[in-house]
C-alpha cells in the first residue's frame, strides 16, 4: 500500500525527524543521520557558526537532507521571525521550525506567539512547522495561519518522559488536517512506535538519541520503531474489549 508523507510539497519516505543538539561532537551526526534514515534534520540557528568551517554543524548534514532550522532562543513572535529570516538568508532553505519559548524553567512553548510567528512566516513563503503545547484550538489556528504541519509536544523538551500528553495528541490527530509530528519528550523507541500507532504522521527525536550510550544504534532503533508504528497504524489494530473474548467460542456450534 502506498503511504506518502508530503510536507511543503516534498514527499518524505522517512517519518523520523531528528535534531543535532546535545551531541558530544558534530562528527557523530552523519552516522546518526545515516542510521536513522531521517530526511529532515533540525538545528538551532543560534548554534550555527557560519564563520567557522569546522564548527559549522551544517557541514555535517548530508546535502540530500532537508534542513529544518529552528528558532530556539526566540522569546516572542518577532524574534522567531527574525531568526527565520536570518536562517533563510544564510542559505538554510525555507523550512523553519518555530520554537517560541519564554519559560526557561520548563521550556514550554508559547502557543499565542507561535501562532503570530506562523502567520507572518507562512505569508512569506516559509514551510512553517510550529512546535506547540497540544491544544486543539491553538492547533486549528496554526492550521489556519498556514502551518505545513503542527508539532505538539509529548512531554517537556529533553525529559524523555514519553507521551504524557497522549489524550490531547489523540484529539489533535483526529481533528487537524495537516500532519501531526510529535515533538519533544519521546525518550524511547517504544514511545515513538506508540505515537505512530496512534496515527501521528511523524516524530521528532533529539535528546533520546543524542544522550544515549550509543547514539547511532539508538537512531537505528528509533527508525525501526517508527516504521513498525506506522505499519501498525495502517494495518489497523484489533478492537479493545472490556471482557475476555475466547478465540474458540463455546457456543459457536449454534451458528453452524
Amino acid at each position, binding site marked *: 500500500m502506498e503511504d506518502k508523507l508530503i510536507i511543503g510539497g516534498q514527499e518524505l519516505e522517512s517519518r523520523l525527524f531528528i535534531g543535532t*543538539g546535545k551531541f*558530544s561532537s*558534530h562528527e557523530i551526526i552523519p552516522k546518526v543521520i545515516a542510521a536513522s534514515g531521517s530526511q529532515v534534520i533540525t538545528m538551532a540557528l*543560534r548554534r550555527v557558526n557560519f564563520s*567557522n568551517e569546522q*564548527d559549522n554543524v551544517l557541514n555535517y548534514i548530508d546535502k540530500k537532507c532537508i534542513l529544518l532550522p529552528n528558532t530556539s532562543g526566540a522569546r516572542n513572535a518577532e524574534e522567531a521571525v527574525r*531568526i527565520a529570516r536570518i536562517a533563510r538568508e544564510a542559505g538554510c532553505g525555507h523550512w523553519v521550525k518555530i520554537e517560541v*519559548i519564554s519559560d526557561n524553567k520548563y*521550556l514550554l512553548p508559547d502557543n499565542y506567539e507561535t501562532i503570530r510567528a506562523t502567520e507572518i512566516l507562512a505569508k512569506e513563503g516559509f514551510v512553517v512547522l510550529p512546535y506547540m503545547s497540544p491544544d486543539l484550538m491553538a492547533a486549528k489556528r496554526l492550521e489556519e495561519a498556514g502551518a505545513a504541519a503542527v508539532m505538539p509536544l509529548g512531554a517537556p523538551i529533553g525529559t524523555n518522559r514519553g507521551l504524557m500528553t497522549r489524550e490531547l495528541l489523540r484529539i489533535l490527530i483526529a481533528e487537524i488536517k495537516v500532519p501531526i509530528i510529535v515533538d519533544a519528550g519521546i525518550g524511547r523507541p517504544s514511545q515513538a512506535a506508540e505515537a505512530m500507532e496512534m496515527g501521528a504522521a511523524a516524530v521528532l527525536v533529539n535528546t533520546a538519541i543524542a544522550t544515549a550510550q550509543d547514539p547511532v544504534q539508538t537512531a537505528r532503533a528509533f527508525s525501526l520503531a517508527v516504521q513498525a508504528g506506522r505499519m501498525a497504524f495502517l494495518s489497523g489494530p484489533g478492537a479493545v474489549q472490556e471482557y475476555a473474548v475466547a478465540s474458540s467460542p463455546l457456543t459457536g456450534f449454534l451458528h453452524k
Partner: protein
Amino acid sequence: MSFADKLLKYQEFPFASYLAGVTGADIERTLTKEALVERDFLNLLSEQAVPYLERMAQKAHQLTVQHFGRVILLYTPLYLANYCVNQCAYCGFKVTNRITRKKLTLEEVEKEARAIAQTGLRHILILTGESRQHTPVSYIEECVRILKNYFDSISIEIYPLTEEEYGQLVAAGVDGLTLYQEVYDPVTYDAIHLAGPKKDYRFRLDAPERACRARMRAVNIGALLGLQDWRKEAFFTGLHAAYLQDKYLDTEISVSLPRLRPHVGNFAPCSVVSDRDLVQILLALRLFLPRAGITISTRERAEFRDNLLPLGVTKMSAGSCTSVGGHLEEATEGQFDIADQRSVREMHDMLVSRGYQPLYKDWHHL
C-alpha cells in the same frame, strides 16, 4: 517584592543549628526527590552531605547531560578598563592600589576583538572597574558597537546600572549580564566595601532583577566564595537564582562559583573554600536548579576544572586574561591571578578528549 525580602526571611534563621541537625536520612530523602525545595538544597550543603557526594555527582551528571547534552560553551573575558572608584578590600583594582590604570581606546578595543575572534570564540564578556567617569555607559555602548562586528554574543560584567541603562545596552547589542553580589551577608558586605558607590548593598542586590526587567537575555550571578561562611553564601546564591528563574521566566539564569584568588594587595579569605567544598556547592546547585547554567572560570586550575567538567558545568572561560590590553602586547596588572592559562585551542582539545563538544556560538544577536 525584591530578592531582599526573601533574604529578610532568613535573617533570623538558625543556620548553624539547622545544618548541625541534618541527618543522613534527610540527605537520602532529598536525593530521591525529583524537585528540591529550599530546605533540601540546604541539606545538600551540610557537612552530613559529604559522604553522599558521589551519589550527588552521579545525579548531577545525569541531569546536566539530559538538559544540556555533552556540550560546553566557551567564552573569554575582555577587560576594557581598570579604573575604579571603590575600595573593596579583596580586589586588585581598588582605588587605593598603586597599579597602572588604563582604558582601551576604541581602536584598541577593535584590535583586542580581532585577536580574540581569531581564536574562534564568538561569545565575549566585557569588564570594567567601577568608574562612571572613566567608563560611562556611553563608552561601553561604543565598545559594544565595535564588538558586534566580531562576536555573536556580548555580555557585560560592570558596575550595577539602572533599568533604563540596562535597556540602553540591550538595545546596543548586549545580551548577557554577569554581576556578583560578592557577599550576601549585609554586615560583611559593609565591612569589606570600605568606600565608593559599591557600598550600596541594595542597589547591587537588585541589579540582576533590573537587568531581567530590561529584557537582558541571560543573567549570571554569584557570590565571591571566601568572603563569608560558604554554606550560607552558596545557599543564598541558589535562592537568588531560583527567585530570578521563577519571576523572569524568559531570562536564562546562570550561576558562577568564583573563589578568591591572589591579587595585588594581601586580603586573606575569611572562609577557606576547599576543592571538596566547591564540588559540594556545584553539585547542590545543579540538583536544586537543574536548568540553570553553571560557569567555572579560569580562577580554578586546569586539572581541577577538567575534573569538574562532568559535575554540572555548562560554561567555561578559555584563553583568559584579567589585565587591560591583555590580548595585545602592552598589558596592565591583572585583577587577580588566573590559574588556568590554557589557550582556546588547548581547552578545545581537552573538551574533545573528554567526550564534550566545545561550543563557540550559542546565540546570534538579532
